[in-house]
């Protein structure tokens, strides 16, 4: 049975004092800029987060002081750059409680991490007629790679439906598991609805029928304490740029035995042990999956972002976002004609609120918010078209929150929504 509170709280190593969001904001240079003559109110961290100065400086410092390729040179600069990347790997491993840092594969982003698994593990293990179970609330990045795999292999896809209030139909999930899927892939937290899925229970249930599990953690790792060992996830994927780090770097975590058994993804430099003209042997984990010169500055930046989040304390991050989300839900619900999609219970959702306002098109809302009050929100299908179809929508407006979001940001959003209503004379 799945408990209503889906978030597994982990004991922080040290009980950190919680910094106020007002104080945290001082670390983010971009938040002092203006947009259309108004102070920027950034409510699109689900698409990409802003970066603290420490991350930006760490990347600049690399370029200015020890820029060199990694795993090659025997000279000082290269050794420093290599150490920078490998230290970042260790930081990421500790952050998600991976047993070993070799289980952390650096990719470009969550999409590449999922594609890596779909191509390598998928090609080796999925055959015609095999079942892959996904959900209706997946981002396209956790949908299209499996569609491609199914097309290549003749595998079948089934989907866990979403209830009207934005939760997975776990009763149907249990029925689908009876068909013994080879793989279950689902999002830990929906980027479109904010729903936090009961990952630990879903993984245990999948394992009970012998399925391998992949968790799209692009939205959960930045916002909740995530412990891959407690979850018992086989694969878990996330992106650097949504967690205060740079773009161009993502992570694939995998269980060691699975990663060891998988064929390589891309061929090239760094991923090989020996190369002959007609055959090669592969490097050890994690480099077997990291062909070519990696995103060095980006890895270093991600390591710094992890450090920053750890200093805040992920329990504090979660607590702050719950408070902001509760406040935002209450404020938005008070607006006549505003409809919120997704669960309303604060322990079943993260800091992402999808909504529509009467019949104002979300794109018009986003334009008005941008120009009138300097608020940046997302408008569109959020790369989750099947989910939009399920609700009979072509688009929603989406406001999302992070460590630097303050109540005043929500107030400005609400003020902008009232302006939109005036403009459209509602």
């Amino acid at each position, binding site marked *: 049975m799945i408990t209503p509170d889906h978030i597994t709280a982990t004991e922080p190593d040290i009980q950190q004092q919680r910094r106020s969001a007002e104080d945290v904001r001082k670390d983010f240079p971009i938040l002092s800029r203006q947009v259309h003559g108004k102070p920027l109110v950034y409510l699109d961290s689900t698409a990409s987060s802003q970066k603290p100065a420490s991350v930006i400086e760490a990347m600049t410092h690399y370029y200015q002081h020890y820029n060199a390729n990694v795993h090659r040179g025997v000279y000082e600069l290269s050794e420093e750059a290599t150490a920078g990347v490998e230290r970042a790997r260790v930081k990421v491993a500790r952050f998600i409680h991976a047993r070993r840092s070799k289980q952390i594969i650096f990719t470009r982003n969550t999409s590449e991490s999922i594609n890596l698994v779909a191509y390598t593990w998928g090609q080796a293990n999925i055959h015609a007629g095999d079942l892959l179970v996904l959900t209706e609330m997946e981002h396209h990045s956790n949908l299209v790679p499996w569609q491609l795999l199914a097309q290549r292999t003749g595998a079948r896809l089934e989907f866990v439906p979403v209830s009207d209030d934005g939760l997975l139909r776990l009763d149907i999930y249990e029925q689908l598991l009876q068909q013994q899927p080879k793989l279950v892939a689902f999002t830990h937290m929906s980027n479109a609805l904010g729903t936090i899925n009961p990952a630990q229970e879903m993984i245990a249930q999948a394992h009970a029928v012998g399925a391998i599990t992949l968790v799209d953690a692009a939205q959960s790792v930045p916002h909740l304490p995530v412990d891959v060992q407690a979850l018992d996830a086989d694969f878990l994927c996330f992106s650097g740029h949504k967690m205060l780090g740079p773009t161009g770097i993502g992570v694939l975590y995998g269980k060691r035995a699975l990663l060891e058994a998988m064929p390589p993804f891309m061929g090239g430099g760094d991923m090989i042990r020996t190369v002959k003209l007609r055959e090669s042997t592969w490097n050890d984990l994690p480099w077997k999956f990291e062909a070519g010169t990696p995103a060095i500055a980006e890895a270093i930046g991600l390591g710094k972002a992890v450090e920053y989040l750890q200093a805040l304390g992920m329990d504090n991050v979660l607590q702050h976002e719950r408070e902001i989300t509760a406040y935002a839900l209450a404020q938005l619900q008070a607006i006549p004609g505003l409809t919120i999609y997704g669960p309303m219970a604060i322990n079943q959702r993260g800091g992402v609120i999808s909504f529509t306002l009467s019949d104002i*098109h*979300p*794109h*018009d809302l986003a*334009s*008005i918010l941008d*120009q*009138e009050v300097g608020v940046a929100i997302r*408008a*569109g*299908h959020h790369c989750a*078209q099947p989910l*939009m179809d399920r609700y009979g929508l*072509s*688009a929603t407006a989406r406001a999302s929150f992070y460590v630097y979001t303050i109540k005043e940001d929500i107030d400005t959003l609400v003020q902008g929504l009232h302006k939109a209503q005036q*403009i*459209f*004379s509602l």
Partner: protein
Amino acid sequence: MSMDYYREYILDHYRNPRNYGTLERPDVHSEDANPLCGDQLSMDLVLEGDRVTAVRFQGRGCAISQAAASMLSEMIEGKCIEEVVQLGKDDVLDELGIPISPARTKCAFLSLRVLHRGLALAGLEKPQDEDEEE
């Protein structure tokens, strides 16, 4: 400075779209969607000789895309096909009379794209290169 986008005449076209609907047995028909925001639009034209005697569009979308479609339909009606073929982005922008940011150009030009695709399908003009940067 208040909203440039949402001037009264634009909202008027949005709320009361001209030539809204479909035509039976159109000589020109086309439809398309804007993948960015899911806007959908169809356009039907009936010709008599080389003149457009009736035009209808139908769709759902933001105020910019729907107002632009409504205005474009007014520009087309009664014109001869040689003139319609010549209609371009500048004509739509002139009619909208507002600066369109790069993120919204696809909304503003959706109906124009649908029109030219329909004309090409009907063999009234050469297919246009739709990959062109806007």
